[in-house]
């Protein structure tokens, strides 16, 4: 038997929240909107964006005049400089490809924006998801908004979806030029108990028969919901840990005690690791213990 875990295809469960966010984003698309997706970490913003991006590109057909392509990418930190131009170049790199340094330096921001829009037209790209947009400086975001404005002027619909946490919303409202162009704020909330049950049942067949009417089952679902505060990104790894032990140690049966044991095990190791790290863990055996061993 191979030591390696079996390769699995990623399973995306489309939750009500995801569907709602997608629909709200597409709803304002024709206005060439700026859309902001915010919310705590691990709530499914990136998954939703990748899923919507995948669907838009998969369903794209040249015959459909309404169809368009989209791009999803993650931004990193930006070094100081002409941040407006850097923001435009970041979009160009993601949507079109590399841009020669010489051209970048010689071309003013508004021209770069025009060139980018023309290239987007060629590729029929009308939506760009900019993940981790909290990393972007305000000026870089202005550069991106300039591209959107130029696109509108060139009769091209272009929606920019800024996805992030940190100080993104505060940053965006600081400038009225950006703030007033945001046509949709999508706030990702933690999942409710019902949504947690739906997620669990979709991801792990064991939970497919669970009902909130059953007291024992409800306790289990509530325990998972409480422990992870309805955060999908944390529930999924927990499920993976549960699945590993389901057949090996639990005999194929899950109860509240088993769930608690798995989670407490995880928490215990995590706390021990953190406290060791805080206490200046060096990896060496303490002198006292060595002496004890020697005297034994």
């Amino acid at each position: 038997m191979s030591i390696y875990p079996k390769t699995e295809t990623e399973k995306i469960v489309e939750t009500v929240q995801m569907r709602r966010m997608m629909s709200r984003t597409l709803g304002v698309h024709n206005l060439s909107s700026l859309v902001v997706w915010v919310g705590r970490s691990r709530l499914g913003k990136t998954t939703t964006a990748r899923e919507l991006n995948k669907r838009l590109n998969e369903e794209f057909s040249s015959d459909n005049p309404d169809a368009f392509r989209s791009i999803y990418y993650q931004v990193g930190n930006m070094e100081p400089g002409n941040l407006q131009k850097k923001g435009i170049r970041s979009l160009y790199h993601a949507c079109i490809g590399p841009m020669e340094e010489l051209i970048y330096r010689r071309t003013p921001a508004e021209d770069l924006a025009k060139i980018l829009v023309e290239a987007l037209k060629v590729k029929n790209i009308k939506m760009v998801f900019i993940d981790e947009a909290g990393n972007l400086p305000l000026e870089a975001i202005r550069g991106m908004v300039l591209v959107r404005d130029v696109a509108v002027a060139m009769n091209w619909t272009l929606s920019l979806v800024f996805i992030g946490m940190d100080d993104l919303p505060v940053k965006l409202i600081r400038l009225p030029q950006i703030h007033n162009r945001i046509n949709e704020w999508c706030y990702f909330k933690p999942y409710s108990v019902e949504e947690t049950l739906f997620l669990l049942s979709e991801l792990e067949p064991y939970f497919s028969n669970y009902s909130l009417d059953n007291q024992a089952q409800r306790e289990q679902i509530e325990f998972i919901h409480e422990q992870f505060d309805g955060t999908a990104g944390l529930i999924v790894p927990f499920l993976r840990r549960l699945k590993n032990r389901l057949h090996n140690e639990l005999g194929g049966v899950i109860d509240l005690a088993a769930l608690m044991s798995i989670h407490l095990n995880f928490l215990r190791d995590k706390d021990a690791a953190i406290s060791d790290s805080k206490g200046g863990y060096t990896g060496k055996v303490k002198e006292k213990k060595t002496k004890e061993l020697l005297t034994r």
Partner: protein
Amino acid sequence: MQISHRQRIISLVESAVIFYDRAVKLIDLQEYARSLGQMDLCDERLSTCLARLVHNGTIYIAKQGRKDKFGGNFYLPTGVAPEGYVENLPLSWLDVVWQSFEEIWVNRTSQALAEDILPTPVSTDEVEAYILGKFGKETFPQDESPVAYALGYLCKPKPKAVLKKLRRDTYGRCLWIPASISPNDYELKGRAKNKSETINLLVQKAVEHFRRPVTADEISKTAKFFPHLKMNGQMWLNDLVNETKFSPIKQIAAIKGEWYYFFGEISEEEIQSFVLLRNSERQWLELNTNETLKLIRLCKLPSVIFGRMLLLKENISRLLFDLKNFCDMENFNETNRFSQEIISLFKEIKTVLLEVETELDEMAVERSSLPCKINGQRNLLNSTEITNYLKPFLTKVKEANSEARTADLIGRQIKKHFNHQYKPIFAGNSKENTVPRYLFDKFDLVTYTAQQIGGNLCRALAIMAQSEMGELRDGRFLLPMLESENYEHRLGATVCLAFMQNLEYKKHIYELALFDEDAGVRKIALWAYVFMQGNRIAELIAKIKECETHHQVLEFITKIEEIGVENIWFI
């Protein structure tokens, strides 16, 4: 009891003499009175009063000075003997400089005596620093280079030369010694006596610093670290060339139009090694492999990535081949001073070549449809053709009065290649028979023109093509991409082929414009066909009009018809 003004002045002079411990001048008295808060004594009446007191015999002039900042008479009260009060008083700026020089020289000689060596001459800077330290900044007159002028004056034979200047004005900073010193009583330690020695010393220092033959530029840079060897102006370059005829300085070789000089003995074999090393290093730097590899990895078209990698591999191999041949030569001596550098460069290039080869082997591309060697032939134009091409588009080229000016205007944006058939006009050929020294790349020319005059679409596509193709000019690597399932590959290949302006590919583009499944690709293929000045443009447009349903393509046709096919650049 009220004290008279006259009495106050007398007591001021007395106390000032005690305070300064020397005979005092008018300005000393003014300063002293100011420090005591007796401001009323500082006015112009003080000098009149002093003159009266001298006339009366209450005070007397102990020493007479000149009429400059250091000038003025030194006064002492009657009854005070001048001994101990007037010695070492600088009378003028010249006096200050001379005294300072004397003190430096005395220190230097005593130090040299202690070390049993000869004293070294004093530089202008040293005298200046000494005066600054001893008398302060305010002592300096407002004139330009007062120390140098004063020292120069002290060298003049009339009234009497007390100093001797060792170097001429044209050789940077001067060195000074007392006039009475004979040439055998001082030593020019690390300092040149004349121009020739300066150049020799400079080249020697530069060679010691760089540990190899050096260029004139590198010699100049070295001179910055040795101020006493600093050369003024550009004339010294001629002197440097002249020096190579008589001194140990040798003119080794010219590499890319730049002469290298060496000081001391160097064998013919070492010269050969050096030339090869410098040439290889230059070529290696020009290849800029790390940056090129980064850019190649960012490309979208897999077969172009393969082609560009292959091209890079070929370039590196060619460079490595020369180095290997040299190392394998029978007379290659590993002990010569450049051999180790050649070997380390060889190893460095070899490592990168292996990296490129591994990456090439691991690339997932359909190799059967791709050529295994790069076609090195480029579509090259001479400067006349370039000028003719650009004239209709660019006013600055139109106004340029020569082809050389056109090349200047273009700068480095169109890569120029050395024409191997070129022979200098003085090499036995008449001017009419000469071929151009450099040729220009047509792909670069077209993309440059597009960026200069093109509309947004044209510019966007030019940038795309430039980024994709890099240095590759072999269209065969683009053809498989036209059949790719990925629309981006077909689009990218179409754009690149359009800018290559190669007639062979027109047919492929024509078909793409009619039958591609993606409307974006069909639109760009139509643009490309018009841009390449295909001979069936009208026919293609008519056919597209018949069968096309997508609004984008139809709108584009309308735009072309409005603007005219000859103005396709401006879309």
